[in-house]
């Protein structure tokens, strides 16, 4: 699998503040990559360096196999981006905004521009918006228009920074469907977000940023792999402890965590002893637990440095 985004030892220093401190990103073709981190952890600065807006202090960026920012003119027309919220000319209509942006750079053919604008507006659910100026749009509509702008040239790579910001729950679900749809069509998606739930539902690969450092980068399936324990739900947690003495790792209310990666075996033991079992599942860490654990350890590292 070829890499779509690669960074090596990426550093950005703003004055005395080191916003990004040695990031090695690796996003493969066909990934839906979730780029997580608290506000101020360096996500946006990294995204801006990917797109050539901010110039790295040290380190290198490769986008679609070519060095940025040098190859920007060749590479960026194949990339769709939404950075830190949408921005448009307020007195012009959505379609006029898209047309101007499309005409402002290479790779946007004039001949089929109107058709492409109509297509992307339909795609993001703004097909009927007409000639209303963007100033009269709601925040959600602007977000959709920003997304439409990113899709104008059928990009191979989408770099999206908080794409569901300002959308209502239905809108968020729509955007998720749209992104999954594009992904099935072969688009690589790089999604920067602080919404763990959004990333958990969408992404196949996750990178976690904490205070400018990458503290975690792995496949989602591996991060949330079973821990080797089984979660038992029972109205009589006390009797579980009696039957499976020494195997109980934790218990809270009607929920007991038992060592053993085979729920069937745990179930057989409990039922054999006459303990009522109302629920049974392999224990998996949530993304939130993974991220909090990873970000926690890095805080110490930064302090020592």
């Amino acid at each position, binding site marked *: 699998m070829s890499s779509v985004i690669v960074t090596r030892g990426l550093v950005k220093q703003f004055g005395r503040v080191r916003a990004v401190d040695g990031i090695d990103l690796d996003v493969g073709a066909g990934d839906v990559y979730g780029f997580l981190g608290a506000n101020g952890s360096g996500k946006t600065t990294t995204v*801006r360096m990917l797109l050539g807006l901010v110039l790295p202090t040290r380190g290198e960026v490769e986008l679609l196999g070519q060095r940025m920012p040098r190859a920007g*003119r060749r590479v960026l027309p194949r990339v769709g981006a939404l950075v830190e919220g949408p921005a448009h*000319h307020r007195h012009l209509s959505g379609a006029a905004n898209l047309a*101007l942006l499309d005409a*402002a750079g290479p790779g946007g053919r004039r001949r089929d521009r109107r058709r492409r604008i109509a297509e992307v507006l339909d795609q993001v659910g703004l097909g009927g918006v007409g000639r209303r100026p963007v100033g009269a749009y709601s925040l959600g509509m602007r977000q959709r228009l920003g997304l439409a702008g990113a899709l104008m040239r059928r990009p191979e790579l989408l770099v999206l920074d908080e794409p569901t910001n300002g959308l209502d729950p239905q809108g968020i679900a729509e955007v998720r469907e749209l992104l999954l749809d594009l992904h099935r069509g072969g688009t690589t998606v790089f999604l920067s977000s602080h919404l763990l739930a959004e990333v958990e539902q969408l992404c196949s690969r996750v990178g976690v940023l904490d205070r400018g450092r990458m503290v975690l980068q792995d496949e989602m399936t591996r991060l949330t792999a079973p821990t080797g324990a089984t979660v038992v739900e029972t109205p009589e947690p006390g009797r579980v402890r009696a039957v499976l003495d020494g195997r109980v790792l934790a218990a809270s209310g009607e929920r007991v965590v038992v060592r053993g990666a085979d729920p069937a075996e745990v179930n057989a033991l409990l039922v054999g002893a006459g303990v009522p079992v109302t629920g049974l599942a392999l224990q998996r860490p949530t993304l939130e637990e993974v991220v909090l654990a990873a970000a926690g350890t890095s805080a110490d590292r930064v302090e020592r440095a």
Partner: protein
Amino acid sequence: MIGVELSKMFRRPRTWTTIAVLNALPVLVAVLLRLTDLAPRPGEGPPFLSAVLTNGALFPLAALAIVLPLFLPIAVAVVSGDAVAGEAQAGTLRYLLARPAGRTRLLVAKLVAVLAFVVVTVVVVAAVGFVTGTLLFDAQPVGGTSVSGTSLTQEELAGRTLLAIGYVAVSMLGVAAFGLFFSTLTDSPLAAALGALAVLVTSSLLFTLDAASPVAPYLPTRYWLAFVDLFRDPVLWRDVVRGLALQGVYVGVLLTAAWANFTTKDVTS
């Protein structure tokens, strides 16, 4: 890219409001002159105004002379200061650069759009001046009178008017270069426009100060009104040529600085 910037400039309501406001002052002056018949004495007040009562065809030049010292530079400073900083403030700059528009191309396109604004504004002021002048005063289609008192044919007058419009445009290009340079330094269009205006105010002030006479020949506003010399007979080229050369130096240096700054700048807006 240039087309995109021109389209943005002239589809913007503010552009036309500015041009309309710029035209209001000369029209007001013309109406007052017409009502009172009190023209400034020759040699006083704005150039050409004293001659307007006898020949309305000179009013375009009077109109330019009225807006040139203050109104036009303010408009150009605002528009050029807005060029890059306005996009930065609105957030559209990052999308333009990620499109990618190319930083050098964008800067050139912005400069061309500001220049187009200057030319359109100057031409509209001259045209409105001509209409006002011929409607309100007796126009003498057969030529006019030069500032030196000799008479000019209609062709001569028209040709010299065109030259004057060009000269004013070049003078304003100097202002635009200041505005554009400051516009690459800040994300605030207001700060960029104020920066350019501060330069012009300083320059105008130093020009009147005897103690500043050693630097006077290098002040950006020094030769602004030299377009009057184009209507002398024969044309007095000295100040016009110096004015063009001076603006050329300012424009060259400032645009180079703007380019050097903008192409190496972190866009964090």
